[in-house]
Structure formats: C-alpha cells, structure tokens
C-alpha cells in the first residue's frame, strides 16, 4: 500500500517512478525546462562542457529574453545572440525580447499543466505552481543537465500546509496576503520546503491572484508553492490549451511539516520596507513617507488586473500624478501589454505622463529600464527590495500592492489606498 502523499510527493513520485517521500533524493523526468537571458548564457557554456550535442526533448525546452529587454549594452545584446543561435540550432522555442517574463509566458501559452514538473533557471519559476504543478527554480548547470538528459535530481521537500480562511476585506489585495504570509514564515521559513494552499479562502483568489501568492513564496525560500486544481484552473487553461489534465490532490492523511492558517479578513494593506521583502509593516506605520518613483510591473504585479486596480485608484484620486513622482509601467508580457492597449489603459497611463517600457522584467533587477536616482524612495509592485536591486545601492525600495503603489503616485507619499477618493 502506498503511503499518504502531499501534492509534491505525488508529482515527484510520478516523475521519478519511485514512491518519493519527503527527504528522499530522486531523479525525475522534467516536463518543461525554462531558461532566461540571465541564466542561459551560462547554461549553454555548461551544456558544452558537459559534452552536450543535442537536447533530449527539444519540445520541452524554452528560452525567454526577458531580463535585458531590450538590451541596453553591447554585452547583453551578445547574450541574446548567443541564446537565439542556440535555440535555433537545437529547435527549442524562443520567446523574443518583448514577449514577456519567462514563467508568465509559459503560463499564458498553456505550456504548463496540472501535474507537471517544471524547472526554470529563475527563482520565481515557482509562480507556475498556482496551476497545480511542481515548478521550481534551479541554476544554470541543472538547466544544462536537464537539456542533455531530460532529468534533474531533486530532494523531495517537506510541505507546509497554508490554510486560507474566509474572505479579504474590501481594498485588501492578494499582494497584502502574500506579504503577510512571507512575514509570518520569515526569510527562510519555507527553505527546502514546498507550500500547499488549502481552505475555503482559496476561492477568494482568481488564478491570477494565486500567481502572486506562489510568486512571493520564494521570498521565504519555498521550493514550490502549489494550489489544487479547481474551476478557476480549468477556466484559465481552457482558453490557452487543448490539453486536459486531471488535477493532483493531496491525500487527507498526508504529512505536513508545519501548518499555518491565514484568516483573510484580519489582513490590511501592508508594505515591505528596505531591504528585505520579509520586513513587513502595516501601511499605517509609513503614511507620509515621500515616494519619488512608482514602479508597476514584474512577475508579481505586472498583470492586467494589477494595472486596472492601479488605474482605478489613480482615477478615484483625481486622475493626476503628484509632481516629482516618476511612474514606470512595465507589462509582464506582450499579452498583458496588448490587452492594456485594446482596453485603453495604456493610453490613460500615457496621458498621466507614465514611462511605459518593453514587456519583461524591466526595472526589477536593475538590468533594463528605469534605474532610480541616488537617495530616491521607490514604491514597487515587485517581489524583492534588496539593497542595489534596482541598480542603485542608495535607493530605498518599498514593496506593496498595485493599489497602494497607485495611491502613492497620486499623493507623492505612502498612502492607504482605501483612503483615496
């Protein structure tokens, strides 16, 4: 008889062919291997040094040019040329500059399905776990080994059960819940572990909202952050792929290393303060802090709903940006960009005087897009606010929901979005 299993244990058992349980080290078949322009040049080098000549499954390998989009130096342009040539030679899919952030694009294209094992040489690959699959970030050598063999070694993680209860109060964003969660877990509270989301509160989160929770989970070190499949999962995938998969559920008697409960109605708007995403305080403690740059974008807060929420707050606040505030808009993907064009949102941002940049990572890690000036305070929808993260070690980066970022854009200071309009 097989022992009861978590979702992670079930997926890794299916992919390794053995009964994989927490603590085991298993070698698994990989369904999708994702490289980015930041990690693939090194992976290509490892591929050659490993004696690689061909991809084991060309259809299971994709590359995204997202971190240097568009390239701002000759060197990053050369990285792109190298990745293009490799993808072309080996028949792998390439998501060109402007197509979007790797894990966002594979989700949009229906390339990641319930039950899959997905590895990406980018720590936020965990985002895809919102679609009921095991997605994890790895380095470039793992990427190369998986390109050559189709496989990866993994330690089967223990799982933390996160139970979401009830409903969010009006004006409280998925990002606020995610910040509350990583503050509760701490910077390494989920290290080597997977998160699994349970509870009636899951119904309060659309699929796009779930991406935010899975995405931020890695700021507590999580190896994967997985939701069960439900009607929201089906609805998201229905528009994107012909393939149908039944979801993977945990056994009722599955073992969890820890259980936490989050009562959604107790959460209010939050902000992560410099220089750690886990240093989270109530927005009430920061009211009036001057903000010089507002950044709406990234794999956390760069989806259509995020820009709509931000615009709604700005319109409620009088439809103007405070003097001295730079507003930077970077859609997470071309699909997002296009939808914002069609529904008129980008025209509105343009009228507000926003800087609108190429879909991709943008200013998130200082490699392309707007770098804050010295001493500036930035309020951002991103997931990381490490010192120097956006390319200037003297800037202070605060992280909050799209609505809170928009409220600061209107007033020029940190403001509770519920107080606007």
């Amino acid at each position, binding site marked *: 008889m097989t022992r009861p299993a978590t979702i992670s244990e079930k997926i890794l058992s299916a992919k*390794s*062919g053995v009964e994989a349980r927490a603590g085991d*080290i298993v*070698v*698994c*078949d990989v369904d999708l291997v994702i490289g980015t322009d*930041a*990690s693939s*040049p*090194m992976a290509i*080098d*490892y591929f050659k*040094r*490993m*004696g*690689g000549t061909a991809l*084991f499954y060309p259809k299971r390998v994709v590359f995204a040019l997202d971190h*240097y989009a568009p390239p701002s*130096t000759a*060197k*990053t342009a050369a990285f792109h040329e190298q990745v293009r040539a490799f993808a072309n030679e080996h028949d792998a899919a390439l998501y060109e500059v402007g197509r979007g952030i790797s894990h966002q694009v594979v989700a949009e294209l229906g390339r990641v399905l319930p039950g899959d094992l997905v590895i990406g*040489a*980018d*720590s936020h690959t965990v985002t895809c776990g919102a679609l009921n699959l095991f997605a994890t*970030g*790895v*380095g*470039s*050598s*793992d990427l*190369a*080994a998986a390109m*050559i*063999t*189709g*496989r990866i*070694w993994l*330690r089967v993680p223990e799982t933390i059960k996160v139970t979401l209860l009830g409903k969010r109060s009006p004006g409280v964003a998925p990002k606020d819940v995610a910040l509350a969660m990583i503050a509760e877990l701490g*910077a*390494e509270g989920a*290290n*080597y572990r997977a998160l699994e989301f349970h509870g009636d509160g899951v119904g309060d989160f659309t699929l796009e909202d779930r991406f935010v929770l899975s995405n931020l989970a890695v700021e507590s*070190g999580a*190896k994967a952050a997985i939701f069960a499949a439900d009607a929201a999962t089906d609805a998201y995938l229905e528009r994107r792929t012909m393939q149908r998969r039944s979801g993977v559920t945990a056994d009722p008697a599955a073992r969890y290393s820890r259980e936490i409960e989050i009562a959604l109605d107790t959460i209010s708007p939050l902000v992560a303060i410099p220089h*750690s995403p886990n240093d989270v305080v109530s927005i009430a403690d920061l009211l009036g802090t001057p903000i010089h740059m507002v950044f709406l974008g990234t794999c956390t807060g760069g989806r259509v709903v995020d820009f709509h929420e931000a615009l709604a707050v700005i319109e409620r606040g009088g439809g103007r940006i405070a003097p001295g505030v730079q507003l930077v808009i970077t859609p997470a993907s071309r699909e997002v960009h296009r939808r914002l064009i069609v529904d008129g949102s980008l025209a509105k941002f343009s009228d507000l005087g926003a800087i609108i940049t190429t879909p991709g990572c943008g200013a998130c*890690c*200082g*490699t392309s897009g707007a770098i804050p000036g010295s001493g500036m305070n930035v309020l951002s929808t991103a997931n*990381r606010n*490490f*010192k*120097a*993260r956006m*390319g200037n*070690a003297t800037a202070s980066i605060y992280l909050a929901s799209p609505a809170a970022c928009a409220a600061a854009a209107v007033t020029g200071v940190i403001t509770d979005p519920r107080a606007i309009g």
Partner: protein
Amino acid sequence: MAIHCDGRARIVGNDVNTDYIIASTRKRDTLDEQILKRYLLETVDPAFAASVQPGDILVAGTNFGCGSAMEIAATVILAAGITAVVAQSFSRTFFRNAVNNGLLPIECDTSDIHEGDRLSVSSDSAAISIENRTRGTTLAASPLPALMADILAAGGLVEFIRHGGWTQGQPA
C-alpha cells in the same frame, strides 16, 4: 571520496543574498568569474574581494545565498579561491548550485567561529568535521546524501554528466 581543506575563516552575516554575493548589474557586463571576483560581496563590504586569499573558507549565518538562483554566485566564490562555505543554513538554490559546481556547502552552527580563525575541514561519506585550530574546538556536520556526495566527488555536475550520469538517452 574525501575532501579536505585548510584556510582562514571569513565571516559574513545572515541573509546574504546572491545579489550581494555578486550584483546583477556586474553580471550584465561580463560572465568572466576572473573579473567578477573583484566585486565579490561588494554590497556587504567593498573591501572584501581585495582581502580574499586562496583557501579562505567563507563562514556565514543563516539563509546564505537566498534570493535569485543565479549560479554565478557560487562560481564567483570558487573563482576567488574559496572551496568551502560553512553556514548556519543555506537557501536551497545556492546549496544546489554549490554542489553542482564542486563548492562544498557545510551546514552547522557557526556562531563560535570568528574572523580569521584557522579552520581545517574534512568531509567523507560518513561525516563532515570542522576543526577550529585557533580555538581548539571541533564542529560536526551531517554528511551529504549519497547522490549529492557523488556529484561533489566528481567535481561537480559537469563531470558527473560527462561521465554518463543519469544514463542519457534512456527514459526512466
């Protein structure tokens, strides 16, 4: 296979993320570790890189290597001549990248190790020990699981795969 190294302890704190080990903006300009090693840990201490000597052993607090999964954070440390990192705990992506590149990651209580202490590290399939010659103490750590030890013993994932690791070309 046994691994042995002797060197000076170089202390860093808790939550040293990979962006602090090597900044993304440096990595944008070159992937040459011989150049990047000049900027090792610059955000934590601008003078650190110049003071590193080959054989130094990096000693960290909790959650070493958190943040981005970028592998260059592990290879720049190796390029600087550091062959082992001892930490209270590691982020999982850094731990993987260390093993995959032949950089020995050792998890143990580092609170009694001080800057400049002479350390002698021995690792084999049964145990890992760290002798602190300056203080006359010895710390023990659990050995690595067999598969990780095999990869480290091969010198990293490159050699492991080169020599047919995971029997290429055959479905599991």
